[in-house]
């Protein structure tokens, strides 16, 4: 994600995180300004054009992004310390990466199967639970969710081959 500054267990320093984020925000603001300017940010025949309000919003983003970037550059990196330590980053990734995989799998298996697999994998991997215990949590939770949404509230959620087998 960001470049690694290895100093005393810190994976990413607070200073570089501040700078990178502020620059991304500035760029975001610039894109907003550019696109708003494209569709017209002036005064049309029927009042302010579509792009005028977002244009100034973008301008304010760029200004605050630049100010934040400058003050981040001027800050003392030792005083700021770390954005995340290695161990913390590992823990965060241990949640984030499975979550991303989980969300990606929903498209193929439907939400209930993906959720069950996600809970089982997470419990076994992070919580060191046995496979049986994990299944005993994941399956009832998802069966409950299935009945709650599909049957009681009749709100259809993404379903896959397994649900199709049961005729849903």
């Amino acid at each position: 994600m960001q470049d690694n500054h290895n100093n005393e267990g810190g994976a990413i320093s607070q200073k570089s995180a501040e700078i990178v984020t502020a620059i991304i925000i500035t760029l975001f603001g610039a894109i907003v300004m550019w696109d708003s300017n494209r569709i017209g940010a002036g005064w049309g025949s029927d009042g302010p054009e579509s792009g005028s309000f977002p244009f100034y919003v973008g301008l304010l983003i760029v200004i605050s992004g630049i100010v934040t970037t400058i003050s981040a550059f001027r800050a003392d990196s030792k005083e700021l310390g770390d954005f995340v330590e290695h161990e913390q980053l590992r823990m965060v990734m241990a949640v984030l990466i499975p979550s991303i995989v989980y969300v990606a799998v929903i498209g193929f298996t439907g939400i209930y199967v993906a959720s069950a697999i996600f809970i089982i994998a997470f419990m076994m991997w992070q919580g060191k639970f046995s496979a049986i215990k994990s299944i005993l949590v994941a399956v009832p939770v998802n069966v409950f969710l299935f009945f709650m949404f599909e049957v009681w509230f009749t709100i259809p959620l993404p379903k896959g081959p397994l649900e199709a087998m049961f005729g849903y």
Partner: protein
Amino acid sequence: MEEINALMGGFAVALTWQNVMYMFIGTILGVLIGTLPGLGGANGVAILLPLTFSMEPTSAIIMLSCIYWGALFGGAITSILFNIPGEPWSVATTFDGYPMAQKGDPGTALTTAFTSSFVGAFVAVLMITFLAPMVAKFALKFGPAEFFAVQLLTFCSFVGMSKEPPFKTIAAMMIGFALAAVGMDTITGQLRLTFGEEELMRGFDFLIAVIGLFGLGEILLTMEEGLAFKGTEAKIDAKVVWQTWKKLPAYWATFIRGSLIGCWMGVTPGGATPASFMSYGIAKKFAKNPAGFGKGEMEGIVAPETAAHAAGTSALLPMLTLGIPGSPTAAVLLGGLLIWGLQPGPLLFVEKADFVWGLIASMYLGNIAGLIVVLTTVPYFAAILKIPFSIIAPVILVICAIGSYTVGNAMFDVYLMVVFGIIGYVFKKLSYPLAPMVLALVLGDTAEGAFRQALLTSQGDMGVFFANGLVGGITALALIMLFSPILSKLWGMVSGKKAAA
């Protein structure tokens, strides 16, 4: 006395057995949401919102607002028993609540917190009952310029009052406005910021942002801190409650101060958290025994809890009367109202009086229901926190994913939720405030609409925002709020120089 009659009518609406049942379900869900990490008032209500679409609007909003009261109560449980504030405004409650629980008095600490919350909320509801119709009547005179000025005031107060650096607050807020602009422009029908992507044409739903920012983002932060819930057992019986209630009237002054601070700060946005700290600080200053603060003083629980709840409740006043929510959760409730075709604002009091008074009556009843629920069920909720995080975390993430899907029946929203989760984590760590971003995302379209209409009537003359005493006064106040960090610094320099000379 008109209000009393209207309120009695409201009680008649709210007091059907179904609505009372929804009240209890709502508060129980709310307390649950308030105690679980990664689920708070805002995203809890956001996730449950789609489930209420099939319900009757009055019942639905009663249940949703009861979830809110429940979440406010729930935050105190984790603060006192585990020293983990469930919500930002319960941070000040940990100062004295946790030491008191450690000293072997968790029951007293919890009873004190719940009772104070109840009193704070009750005072705020009283204020809403009598002030809201007046504000609404006054706001009927508002034109687009006045509405924009009030919104400007809301957003400027964020800059002026937040602890975060002003430019980070502005950046976060403006990102919210930019995201709100994505999709079709409601006035001209032009597509904005979509870059030809079909998925972006629908725009960003703020519910997705709320679920991502406060759900996944919060889980990532919790994960980082490592999870060791070291808590005290909670037992509350009638005797403890009775003995605590006998002691509480002695702190009547703290109750009054806390409620007033809370009501004042709650009407202005972002109030609950600073209100709780301010109330705690003032209580300490006036206390007979200030040295006991931080070591388990009863007054140290009364002060922040009263103020936080008064603020949390009074945040609904601007939401109902002006359509401007004072907190992210109030914003989600506003989103709910819009989905049912109820446009909050002064006209709501005229056109849907039944609904408004039913809701206000349900605030009284919901808080009583909340107090009963928390006093009787605390041990069960405390037990939930004993469930290992490696079970709770994936289940909450699954709930977040389902919640984001149901908002618009789109997989794209689920992916967006993950992106917002990452943004929430990074922003929280770099102290970019999330509340103004969410409020800007909610209010973006109406603020822009008011701004454009005002400029249209004035043919582009910015002077319309100073055209008369009313709009000029609000705009001026907004600018004072915006520049208040600089003004207070200047004031400090001037008065400092005087003191030196």
